[in-house]
């Protein structure tokens, strides 16, 4: 016969042990990690994780967990640069990264325009987005990032509903080499082939899918 108080004590112990070990992704998102330097995501990325367009803080909601996890690890080891995200990522444990990226991936995102490649693009921006420009070996954005820029698999993140300022900043960073954590340097070549005007126009195209002339 086991005394009741011993059962209670052991279950209390189990509970607190559980709290220490299983990181709570939702809590990290809204309140931050164990280390106070791991600030809550929602402060900059919005309560719904959809980013802050005016500041150019990216949407995280609905992005693939593996992609987000790679970015956090890259911030941590310095292979992706950002003065805010580097110390923040260093303050997150592996377990916390796993938990918070799973939470973010499961958060709902805006629906993406079902823009297909069927239409012949006459507008220069849409042409680049759908078909690219092969005279400079530039594939269309959607050929890797999926129809409407919805994202494909773990390596090709969504472009749709990302703040235009964020997309512009990333393309410029790839172009000048300050961002270089893209697998197989796929984005470096693409970004270098584009002009300032094209980068701005494409960023706007994907930031507000309503602007896409999607006629499926």
């Amino acid at each position, binding site marked *: 016969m086991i005394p009741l108080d011993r059962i209670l004590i052991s279950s209390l112990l189990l509970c607190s042990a559980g709290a220490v070990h299983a990181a709570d992704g939702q809590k990290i998102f809204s309140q931050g990690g164990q280390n106070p330097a791991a600030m809550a995501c929602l402060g900059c990325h919005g309560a719904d994780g959809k980013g802050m367009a005016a500041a150019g803080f990216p949407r995280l909601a609905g992005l693939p967990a593996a992609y987000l996890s790679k970015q956090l690890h890259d911030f941590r080891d310095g292979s992706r640069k950002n003065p805010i995200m580097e110390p923040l990522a260093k303050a997150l444990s592996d377990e916390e990264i796993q938990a918070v990226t799973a939470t973010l991936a499961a958060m709902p995102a805006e629906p993406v325009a079902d823009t297909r490649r*069927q239409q012949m693009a006459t507008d220069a921006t849409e042409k680049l987005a759908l078909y690219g420009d*092969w005279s400079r070996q530039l*594939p269309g954005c959607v050929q890797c990032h999926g129809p409407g820029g919805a*994202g494909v698999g773990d390596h090709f993140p969504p472009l749709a509903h990302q703040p235009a300022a964020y997309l512009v900043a990333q393309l410029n960073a790839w172009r000048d080499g300050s961002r270089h954590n893209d697998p197989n340097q796929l984005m470096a*070549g693409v970004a270098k082939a584009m002009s300032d005007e094209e980068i701005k126009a494409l960023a706007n195209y994907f930031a507000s899918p309503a602007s896409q002339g999607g006629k499926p």
Partner: protein
Amino acid sequence: MNLMIFGALSLALGSAQAAPIAMDDQSQLQVPAVGSAPTFAPPAESELPDNAFGKMVREGHALFVDTRRLMPDKVGNGLNCSNCHLDQGRLGNSAPLWGAYPMYPAYRKKNDKVNTFAERIQGCFQFSMNGTPPAADSPQMTALSVYAYWLASKAPIGVEAPGRGYPEVPQPAQGYDFKRGEQVYQQQCAICHGAEGQGQKVAQDYVMPPLWGKDSYNWGAGMHRINTAASFIKYNMPLGKPGSLSDQQAWDVAAFINRHERPQDPRLVDGSVEKTRLKYHANDGVNLYGQKLDGVLIGQGTGK
């Protein structure tokens, strides 16, 4: 009652009978190694007239870039025309339509036959798309042919234009090596085509095409030849980085891809891989069909 039985019988017979092979000679037409750079410029979209012809071109274009979704009863795998003919059939050294269209009708010595352009496209559907070819007089075939014709506007007839086909990449002195090919594949190709060659989908549609398995080209497609795949890869892959692989790497990775199983050659003779090899594969470029690798017969197919 009798009528019903007759109907059921003819249905059964109909389904048992494979679609006739439109262009049974799929053997390679020699494309010379790259000599001069492609110079032909197909017309721009803005030049399309706003009439029935322009509308037909647009329809053909839509079928060409979104074949799988628009012709689900004709495409038997996960591919679109534009997977092998990059930039909507416009890109030189990527088997552009403007390079193909002026070369038909074409005489083929092997079967002593003249094949029309429609028959050539039917061959694509039967082999590269592992499907059922649209009839030569179908609206879909007309649209595809009109699109090709339009892209070839002002191209000389019967003249091999620089940039047509995939330029031949000579087999390296060392031949090819599956192990090296696998390394190239995992480093350069798997990010898009998947570690198992399965491609990548968004919802139910492929964005990046599968390279082997039941949703890829079948054993009768030109791309099953290692030399043809090496040429395509060298001049077109990785997407946006053509020419970045050496000839050796292109051959190695082509051999690795084309040693994997894919749908059976629809010309299968008497159910025998060996007979099919002798009839259609033995003298068709460099291919592995019907050979034994590590004790396993290649070319058994994946089933539909």
